[in-house]
């Protein structure tokens, strides 16, 4: 049953991903990362015994918890990477805004015309 649910979920996510990329709502570079996540979760869905083996090796008494813990860790890492990306974008945006303001100021000085409205 869990295998079927994992397969349905993975397939639905894959279709959603294709649709988002097709509609230009998701950049292709992010699509690659999500595709990898979907393939991995699909593989694990079809072979749940992998978690049993990992849990035994790591000394985890209840194997499904390991899957949940790994999923949470992956989401935290993803959130952190997103924040790093947002930080870089924020800096780029700030410097662009500064550049625009400085250029508008120089133009106004040269032409006597007020800057364009936003």
């Amino acid at each position, binding site marked *: 049953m869990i295998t079927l649910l994992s397969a349905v979920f993975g397939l639905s996510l894959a279709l959603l991903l294709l649709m988002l990329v097709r509609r230009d709502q998701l950049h292709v570079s992010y699509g690659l990362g999500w595709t990898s996540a979907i393939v991995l979760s699909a593989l694990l869905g079809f072979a749940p015994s992998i978690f049993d083996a990992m849990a035994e090796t790591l000394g985890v008494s209840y194997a499904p918890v390991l899957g949940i813990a790994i999923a949470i860790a992956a989401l935290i890492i993803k959130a952190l990477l997103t924040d790093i990306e947002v930080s870089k974008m924020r*800096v780029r945006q700030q410097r662009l805004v500064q550049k*625009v303001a400085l250029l508008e*100021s120089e133009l106004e000085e040269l032409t006597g015309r007020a800057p364009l409205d936003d």
Partner: protein
Amino acid sequence: MKHGAIIMPALNEEATIVTLLDGVRQTTDLPVWLIDDGSSDRTASLAAERGAHVVSLPVRLGAWGATQTGIRKALNHSLDYVVTMDADGQHDPEDITALAEPVMRGKCDVVIGSATARGSRLRRWAWRLMRLTSGLQCEDLTSGFRVMNHKALAVLAGPRASYLDYQDVGVLLLLEREGLSLLEVPVAMPPRSDGKSRIFSSWLAVMYYMFHTLLLGASKRKRPWNSS
């Protein structure tokens, strides 16, 4: 002859800007560059009427973002030094000469106009905490009344400085890490004319600022922890 300018970030300061610019004009011939951070009042037009060169930001960036805009302009114009001062009347133009002197003589790279007598006991306690976490030795960590030479401008115009939200601990640590010398000169700083801080508009804003600054100080600290 060294070329300089006064950089003045401003947000809704129509109540003080005219008096301030008149005071600056009586004291120095330095050009004033007012960086208007999206004022909704007549700050920009009043400043322009008083002879300031106004740069209007299309998106509000905050006091440090506005100051950095002026610094980038100064670097672009190959200036030797800049004076940064607030537009709320807290900084006395008559102190400009005393502040600029050590930089002009090459004694240091940055001068900070220090007024530790201002503010409440809570502010002084906050400064102490900031010094403990950052390892900075300055007494007045939050003064925006500074003079900076070309070397300092080059450091603060760069992308690393664009990661900063405020002009105090992060900026001072960045200057220190780049090996620049800082000097404090005492100045008088009267209370803000309208009594309202633009940055510390609520207790939530103050708490965010403290957490932000302490984390920044601890993460970018240059001095070893046992040297505080």
